[in-house]
């Protein structure tokens, strides 16, 4: 095993292990902080896949944004509702867990199917790209991302921005005080 492989297995272990802790943990706050480790492990995996831009974006958006917002929501909610959520002790095998278990199992089947049928080493589109010399050197990734976002993927990009806008307007509407006419 070379160093990259060792790093890969280490990162994968950290990601999976911490994700398990997140799912099984009884302490909600610790779960959230453990989720941070999961996201960081994922970022490491992205780096190993030579997608450094995606890795950094992952940290900016998830760690710097979403995780902090989750924590905010957590800390602003009342102690009583949190206590109820934490007291929720159900045995691991029960009828309530059945839908979740089914979903997870089916998803696992799908994933395994993809992994075994994909034949990652000779994907046709990768081969076609290499044959037509349509391959981007790793160093140029950000330029290509920028150009692609502004040309080929402009419509999805703008649609996402409209979605965020709607969320913003909705949040502003919900947080406005009743009766105050602005």
């Amino acid at each position, binding site marked *: 095993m070379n160093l990259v492989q060792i790093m890969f297995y280490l990162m994968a272990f950290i990601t999976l292990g911490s994700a398990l802790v997140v799912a099984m943990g009884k302490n909600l706050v610790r779960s959230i902080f453990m989720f941070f480790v999961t996201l960081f492990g994922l970022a490491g995996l992205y780096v190993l896949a030579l997608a450094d831009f995606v890795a950094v974006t992952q940290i*900016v958006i998830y760690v710097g944004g979403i995780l902090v917002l989750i924590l905010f929501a957590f800390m602003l909610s009342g102690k009583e509702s949190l206590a109820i959520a934490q007291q929720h002790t159900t045995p691991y095998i029960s009828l309530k867990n059945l839908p979740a278990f089914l979903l997870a199992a089916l998803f696992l089947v799908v994933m395994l199917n993809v992994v075994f049928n994909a034949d990652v080493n000779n994907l046709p589109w990768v081969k076609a790209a290499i044959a037509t010399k349509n391959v981007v050197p790793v160093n140029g990734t950000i330029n290509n991302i920028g150009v692609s976002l502004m040309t080929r993927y402009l419509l999805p990009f703008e649609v996402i921005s409209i979605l965020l806008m709607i969320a913003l307007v909705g949040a502003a509407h919900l947080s406005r005080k009743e009766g105050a006419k602005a």
Partner: protein
Amino acid sequence: MNFYITYFIVAAGLFAFVGLFTMFGVYAERKVSAFIQHRLGPTETGKYGTLQVLADMLKMVQKELIIPAGADKILFLAAPIIIFIGVYLGFAALPWAPGLIPANINIGLYYIFAIVSIETLGILMAGWGSNNKYSILGAMRSAAQIISYEIPAGFALISVVMIAQTLNLQDIAMQQGILSPDKAKFFGFLDVSQIGGFLSWNVFQAPHLLVAFVIYFIASLAESNRAPFDIPEAESELVAGFHTEFTGLQFALVFLAEYSMMFLVSMVGVILFLGAWNTPLPNMGSVTLATWTTGTVWGIIWILIKTLLLVGVQMWIRWTLPRLRVDQLMNLCWKILTPLAFLCMLISGIWRLWVM
């Protein structure tokens, strides 16, 4: 394997530097504050109180590690480490001189912007883990403040990146002096590629970046929780904010993080706006000052001088201005700095299209 040993040496060197800077910074802060408030500051320990910081460090090392009874032990113990590591990792991508950079990654600026946001998480961790209402209030204030001020800071950075057309910090540094591969133009019309000096710094290449620099500087004060934006640790309201419960080495780590953050944001500001490791002295005819004062050693000297000057300004501001109230803080961020930063970005685009 020599490769990896070098990495470890570099990392250790950076850590040593951060520690040294913190010692220097604490002493300087006490002396500067004393000067501004017409006091003497530390005088007893050593000549002019120079050994004061060492004495303080000895004291901190000896202190007992106290974990409050109601605290969440794991979070409480991990928080100072995460706060410090978040800042320390940022140092990996900063260029010190031509060809001298610990990790030359082509998205260096973005990386620093991302890694620094981990500090917020550490602060929230500290606040929650301490199980103390002052700590959690301080942590919430700090997180709200850092998230808000990331927006004007980010747009100020983007307006530089639009001019520089790269996220690689070493390339951005290179563009602002006589080593520039492209043409550097003073105010967009005078070609100063051969003259160099302060004329080719980013703030003078495109004058609106001066505004962007001020926005970035203000926002960076808020991001490092320095006065006038120190409501997270407002001692008259919150005891000491998120680090109320920390003692000894843990407190030292929080302190180390604060001072390294000051240095980090100043250095990023210097790299992006004030010519990085380029000399401020221009070439004048046969007196080629810029060519004489460019090189590895000179680079380190210049960037250190500029960064320390900015750190000095941070201290000066801290001991001059009163603390902002929460609503004033948010007004300043959302109603003044953010629109201005947007404007800077717009001008950057126009500048890039029609002037450069």
